[in-house]
């Protein structure tokens, strides 16, 4: 089996570096904003603080999207896929044209899957990986784009289903 594209890329991938910088800047802005809020607006601290925390959590998740050691998601149950980012399965490590752009889109797919409930996101990604591995490089780009375009609708759909499912199950009892 060929190694993953992630392993072949040098550590100084500019995209990863930019993400790291953004994550660091986000963390710094968050810290300063929170300190300023606590000092100047004690009565209303919780409102903007909640917003700032939410934004920083999103930035961190986005920043981790392409970093090594990020949560491995998308290994759908039963998909039986090997270890890796899915790029080798897509044939992007086989001298297949501009792998950088395709790898970037794949990372966007991974990030979109993280916005869905865990099982639904995993299945979606595993199925996308399975399908993309079987189509020609010429058609792959349009296919990935179609997955990305349908992602927002799927996020809403899968969460709606998850909420209904949990409501049917009822509240969890402790112990």
């Amino acid at each position, binding site marked *: *089996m060929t190694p993953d594209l992630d392993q072949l890329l040098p550590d100084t991938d500019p995209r990863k570096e930019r993400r790291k910088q953004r994550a660091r800047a986000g963390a710094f802005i968050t810290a300063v904003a929170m300190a300023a809020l606590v000092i100047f607006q004690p009565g209303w601290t919780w409102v903007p603080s909640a917003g700032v925390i939410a934004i920083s959590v999103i930035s961190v998740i986005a920043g981790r999207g392409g970093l090594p050691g990020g949560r491995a998601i998308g290994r*759908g*149950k*039963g*998909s*039986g*896929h*090997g270890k890796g980012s899915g790029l080798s*399965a897509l044939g992007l490590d086989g001298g297949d044209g501009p792998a950088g752009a395709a790898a970037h889109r794949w990372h966007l797919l991974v990030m979109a899957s993280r916005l869905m409930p865990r099982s639904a996101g995993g*299945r*979606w990604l*595993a*199925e*996308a*990986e*399975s*399908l993309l*591995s*079987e*189509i020609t490089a010429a058609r792959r780009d*349009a*296919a*990935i*784009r*179609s*997955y*990305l*375009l*349908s*992602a927002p*609708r*799927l996020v809403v*759909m*899968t969460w709606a*289903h998850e909420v209904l499912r949990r409501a049917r199950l009822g509240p969890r009892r402790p112990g």
Partner: protein
Amino acid sequence: MALRLTVQVQLILQALLRDPAKEMYGLELSEETGLQPGTAYPILLRLEREGWMASRWEDIDPRAEKRPARRYYRLTAGGAAQASAALAGARRPKGTALRRLAEGGGTA
């Protein structure tokens, strides 16, 4: 919740109804209908949740086969009957709509 019979849904149901006992995987369905896989997936998921379809992961060794497992879909017995009835009552997609789908891969 009632299933909305869009042109894309009709195309998928027609493809599956050609041989209701046959299992089809995403790429096969995509090629059969002319829809982009990203367009077909939410429809398949909705049909499955409505109970019209069932799906399973292919049981293979991905290393031996040198490809990931496929997800196979098939109409359930009830789903086949409901799909036939729904398609019989549905308006046939116009030629222009089908042409647009073929040109755009169903992403519209």
